[in-house]
């Protein structure tokens, strides 16, 4: 399950009903990472110009760390829930 020395690039949320795949959402983590970094930079810039912003830029830096941690483990399955005929998976690739 755990592949050391590799980074995850996608989070894939999928669900199936009676063994047939119903939902498949690939989330590109590298895009999310860059987007949050950009948002953090924007809010930092806003704070420098106009003072405080409703969301503090330090929240975004914490979020960046969270994404970094999520991506550190390469390929692994984070969540697998199976109830009756419904199955939900969250995988990292």
């Amino acid at each position, binding site marked *: *399950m755990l592949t050391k020395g590799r980074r995850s690039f996608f989070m894939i949320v999928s669900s199936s009903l009676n063994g047939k795949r119903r939902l498949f959402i690939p989330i590109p983590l590298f895009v999310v990472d860059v987007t949050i970094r950009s948002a953090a930079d924007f809010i930092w810039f806003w704070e420098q110009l106009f003072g405080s912003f409703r969301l503090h830029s330090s929240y975004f*830096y*914490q979020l960046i760390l969270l994404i970094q941690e999520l991506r550190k483990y390469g390929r692994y399955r984070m969540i*697998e829930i199976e109830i009756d005929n419904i199955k939900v998976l969250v995988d990292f690739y």
Partner: protein
Amino acid sequence: MSSEKMKILEMIQQGKVSPSEGLDLLTALDEGSLRENQSSLQTVDRFLRIRVNGEKAKKVNVNIPLSMVKVASKFLAMSTGFIPKEAREELGRKGIDITNLDIEELTRLIDTGLVEGKLVDVDVEDPQEGRVQVEIYVD
């Protein structure tokens, strides 16, 4: 020095984050970049695993990296301010004070290494669900 580090230092200077919070952020950033550059030197990675197995077609399997729990706990400490006042009051009526969560103790436990083995091991007989086994452990 990276721009993120500069911004954190500026936030400390402006008093937006406390020096200890800033130090935590800088350390975490350093650790992140070190791991990126020296992935072969990674320490042993551990997961918090939650398993629920029901007799009647119920299965839950959750694997959370322990280091992520550590980062998320700091995020939780910063995010308690976002919880609506009504929700905090409701929790207060039930005897739960979310602002009193001992996040530092939790991170200290993770730093020192949680005891390996089962944290929770419950085996119950439910009239509707049948036998349900719940396990939470670190490995």
